[in-house]
């Protein structure tokens, strides 16, 4: 009985889809008015052919300036289902003329990424506070004010983002949508904590970070922020503990060259020159050669539109053989929202193409739809490929940037060691006490775990070293 109901439901859906596709075909054939493209797009959206509707929406907006309520709802649906591709072919000048929230969000984001912050802020301000896109708009606007060092305004916008995203999370029914709003909310919470660090309110910042659940997508990233806050509070042992957390097998795919620099800096501030030097040398051993290997891969495949996407689809062993970093880099990339949205779009577009191919009544209209969809699929593939390529490129740049920091630190370390030799002092490494509970600073809200050579998931984020400072001047090493 259950199967029969499902079968009937499936049949009914398929008939409905066919009927609406037929409706779109009839409009294509008979309608000669200037609103034809808009109507075809509406029919296609109604029958869930979202990607097929994109060219018609774009064509209509290219030639017409009016957007009625139905079209606004259609564009909003397209933005939710296909992302920023809804108005892909329209340039910024053209989009500026349309004052609807979905287009304002796309245009605002596009302008922000092109570093036209003032214009982006103005466009995003068009989105009403009650609208579902207002959480994202507040986040981007907050970022703009944050970059301009207008912290009060930035904080207000981040708070608005938290409130709106929380409300939307509660009211949303779909699990994915709930997760997205939760992600937005946490991003905005983290932003308020970062503003506090920028204002040197480190203790307050650390309290704010505690709001992020350890199971959150964002959690591995905030370890770095927290480590910096502890570093500026001169709790170098805690900073070391947090950066070491990235070495746990659970966080294997999260690697930040900056974490290595912070680790070396923390040892440096404890006047443990040899430990610091070991981290510096390890950085050069591990990262330099990998960066070179990645650079070669990038160079060889820079013109390909599919190479990096194919790497994503390749099995982990094949990826690992090529370069051990690739697997982890792709795992890290997979956790990015944009990548997941684009990948979901690619899958949805491919499914839609299959549906079109299965239609019984083929005609010039369905052929055109298939052709358009093929181009859209190629475009999305190239976009994801470019995204992975850019991630690798950014990673290489990060290594180079931090190599410079490490080089300076190494010079400082050698200079400190030389000074000690000149002053006939015994080098610290010879007689220092290797860790003790006495040196661990701990608040009542922080757990305490003994580290016995293995990482435990519930302990992550609470590690602290217990090293005794080797500085003669007990305050800090003279920088």
């Amino acid at each position, binding site marked *: 009985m259950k199967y029969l109901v499902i079968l009937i439901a499936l049949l009914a859906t398929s008939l409905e889809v066919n009927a609406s596709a037929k409706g779109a075909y009839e409009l294509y054939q008979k309608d000669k008015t200037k609103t034809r493209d808009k109507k075809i797009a509406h029919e296609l959206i109604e029958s869930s052919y979202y990607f097929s509707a994109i060219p018609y929406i774009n064509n209509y907006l290219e030639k017409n300036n009016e957007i009625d309520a139905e079209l606004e709802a259609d564009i909003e649906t397209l933005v939710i289902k296909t992302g920023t591709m809804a108005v892909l072919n329209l340039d910024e000048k053209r989009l500026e003329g349309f004052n609807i929230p979905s287009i304002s969000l796309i245009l605002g984001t596009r302008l922000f990424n092109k570093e036209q912050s003032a214009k982006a802020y103005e466009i995003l301000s068009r989105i009403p506070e009650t609208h579902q896109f207002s959480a*994202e708009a507040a*986040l981007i606007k907050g970022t703009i004010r944050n970059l301009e060092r207008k912290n009060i305004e930035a904080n207000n916008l981040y708070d608005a983002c938290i409130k709106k995203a929380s409300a939307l999370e509660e009211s949303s029914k779909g699990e994915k949508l709930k997760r997205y709003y939760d992600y937005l909310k946490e991003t905005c919470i983290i932003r308020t904590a970062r503003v506090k660090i920028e204002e040197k309110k480190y203790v307050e910042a650390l309290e704010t970070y505690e709001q992020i659940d350890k199971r959150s997508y964002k959690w591995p990233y905030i370890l770095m922020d927290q480590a910096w806050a502890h570093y500026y509070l001169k709790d170098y042992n805690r900073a070391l503990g947090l950066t070491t957390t990235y070495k746990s097998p659970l966080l294997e795919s999260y690697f930040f060259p900056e974490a290595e620099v912070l680790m070396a800096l923390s040892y440096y501030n404890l006047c443990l020159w040899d430990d610091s030097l070991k981290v510096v040398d390890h950085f050069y051993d591990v990262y330099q050669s990998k960066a070179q290997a990645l650079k070669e891969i990038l160079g060889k495949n820079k013109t390909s539109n599919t190479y990096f996407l194919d790497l994503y689809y390749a099995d982990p062993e094949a990826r690992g053989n090529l370069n051990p970093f690739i697997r982890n880099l792709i795992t890290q990339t997979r956790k990015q*929202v944009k*990548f997941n949205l684009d990948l979901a779009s690619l899958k949805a577009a491919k499914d839609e193409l299959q549906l079109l191919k299965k239609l019984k009544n083929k005609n010039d209209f369905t052929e055109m739809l298939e052709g358009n969809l093929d181009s859209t699929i190629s475009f999305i593939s190239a976009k994801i490929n470019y995204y992975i390529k850019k991630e690798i490129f950014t990673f290489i740049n990060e290594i180079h940037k931090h190599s410079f920091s490490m080089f300076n*630190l190494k010079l400082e370390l050698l200079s400190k060691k030389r000074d000690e030799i000149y002053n006939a002092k015994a080098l610290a490494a010879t007689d220092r006490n290797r860790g003790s509970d006495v040196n661990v600073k701990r608040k009542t809200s922080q757990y305490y775990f003994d580290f016995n050579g293995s990482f435990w998931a519930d302990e992550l984020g609470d590690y602290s070293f217990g090293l005794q400072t080797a500085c003669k001047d007990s305050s800090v090493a003279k920088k």
Partner: protein
Amino acid sequence: MKILIIITALLSFAAHAQEEKKNVIYKYKEYEIIDLGSLEIKGQIMAPGDLTVNERERQTFKRSLLEKNYFDFENRREIENLR
């Protein structure tokens, strides 16, 4: 013509006479005594009584180590990765 010859002769004679005048020989004193003790110098004596070197801390050159004052890079990337 005669007059012209006379004038030319007179001019050349005058020039010759001037050259002869220039040939003057100056003579300076071969020996002079300057009594420094009787010379008076006005002003203050600035030279220190004895030589001293002020102790100062050795100059150290600080290299710029990594600081994290802002999160601009991370914040921008988060927006790029949003949609």
